[in-house]
């Protein structure tokens, strides 16, 4: 597959770049943590309420953190005009976007995995019995955020007010994914835990639809 090889090479480049500086990872993690703590001041979490509000707050925090942290994805390529260098190489343009979607997915997942234990402690939730299913929901929801966020990072990096534009474009569009992720997570926190098939299915559909749209139309975003 002509897409796989360059995507893998570029993914390696993205990961290597990030792990050298670790700027995105640390800032994302600290941001989500701060938001979670602040939320707990606004909504005092007793046991019952934390099951009601917890999932929503977690996903909101991730959404906000993501919409800030996804911006450098394409902004970075403007520094030394490296995007031009990538475009001149004999690779499918979509692989550039695909590699960034995967890289952002990794960064967000790493931040989430650090966050889960802390989230469980703050909101007094026991996550161990549902861990596998929770990871599935996290994966699908984060993929939604990463896919749309990366594409919109390409859009906003070419407009004015780019740091503000990305969250602005992202939040309404991700509304269905936010609802689905929250509801799916809430289902898992119930007693007994239930993996909601409709909501998980909706998340999967969301991912498939927007990955396909990216594959079809993404390359137009890279033009000068």
């Amino acid at each position, binding site marked *: 597959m002509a897409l796989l090889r*360059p995507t893998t*090479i*570029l993914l390696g*480049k993205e990961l*290597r*770049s990030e792990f*050298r*500086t670790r700027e995105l990872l640390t800032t994302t993690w600290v941001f989500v943590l701060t938001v979670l703590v602040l939320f707990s001041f606004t909504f005092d979490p007793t046991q019952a309420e934390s099951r009601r509000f917890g999932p929503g707050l977690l996903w909101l925090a991730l959404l906000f953190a993501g919409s800030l942290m996804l911006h450098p994805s394409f902004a970075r390529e403007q*520094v*030394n*005009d*490296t995007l*031009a*260098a*990538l*475009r*001149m*190489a*004999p*690779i499918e343009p979509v692989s550039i976007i695909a590699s960034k979607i995967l890289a952002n997915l990794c960064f967000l997942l790493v931040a989430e995995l650090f966050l889960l234990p802390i989230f469980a402690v703050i909101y007094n939730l026991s996550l161990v019995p549902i861990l596998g299913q929770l990871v599935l929901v996290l994966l699908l929801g984060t993929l939604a955020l990463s896919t749309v966020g990366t594409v919109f990072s390409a859009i906003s990096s070419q407009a004015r007010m780019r740091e503000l534009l990305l969250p602005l474009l992202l939040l309404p569009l991700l509304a269905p994914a936010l609802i689905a992720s929250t509801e799916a997570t809430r289902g898992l926190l119930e007693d007994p835990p239930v993996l909601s098939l409709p909501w998980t299915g909706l998340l999967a559909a969301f991912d498939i639809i927007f990955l396909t749209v990216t594959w079809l139309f993404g390359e137009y975003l890279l*033009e*000068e």
Partner: protein
Amino acid sequence: MATGTKQTFPAGIGVEFQQVEKRYGVRFALRGISLRIAAGESVGLVGANGSGKTTLLKVAARLIRPSAGKVQFSSAETSVVSMVGHSILLYDDLTADENLVLFARLYGMEGSRERAAAALESAGLGGRGADLVRTFSRGMRQRLSIARALLPGPGLLLLDEPATGLDAAGQQWLGETLARLRAQGCTLLMSTHGRSETHALLTRAVRLEAGQVAKDSGPSGDPQRVLATALAAPQEA
């Protein structure tokens, strides 16, 4: 050139601009440019700032899509078009080595590590492979940028003021490198701004003015006159 890495030198690529126009809203960067460059020519592109040199090079590199007209290349082979741009087109957060290996792999080259090392050696950056590009001086960054462009063995090399940032030794190296490429049949299209060692090897000069071809010494003419008059003409700030 380091031994042990076998490089094939593809035949040069010819490029033809057919009534190429590029506009940005109300501003025309290129107006109706028709120009044919045969394989193997070494063409100098001169003109004031804003005359369209960079845009023309980017159109040839397929980075910019023309608003009107076409660009055609004479070789359909796996020959490569490479560009040395205004920016260095390298990742600051990666080492010189990592940058070159990345591009070697993207171009599908075998033995990317060896090629990268060889390229660094040729550029006089032999010992600096493990250093971050961020730490390089201006001149070194430019050398590395040129090395990156040469890596895939291009049939058409586009250069946008490549001597910028290079010291005397760097400019000499650039001149030698371009002469070698020319001997191997690579087509060169280079925008230039001021006197340079490289002018001697040009076979043709084209002067652009406000997005149009003002003067062309032609495939068999004398480029030096066009170069001289262009360089003597007042430049915009």
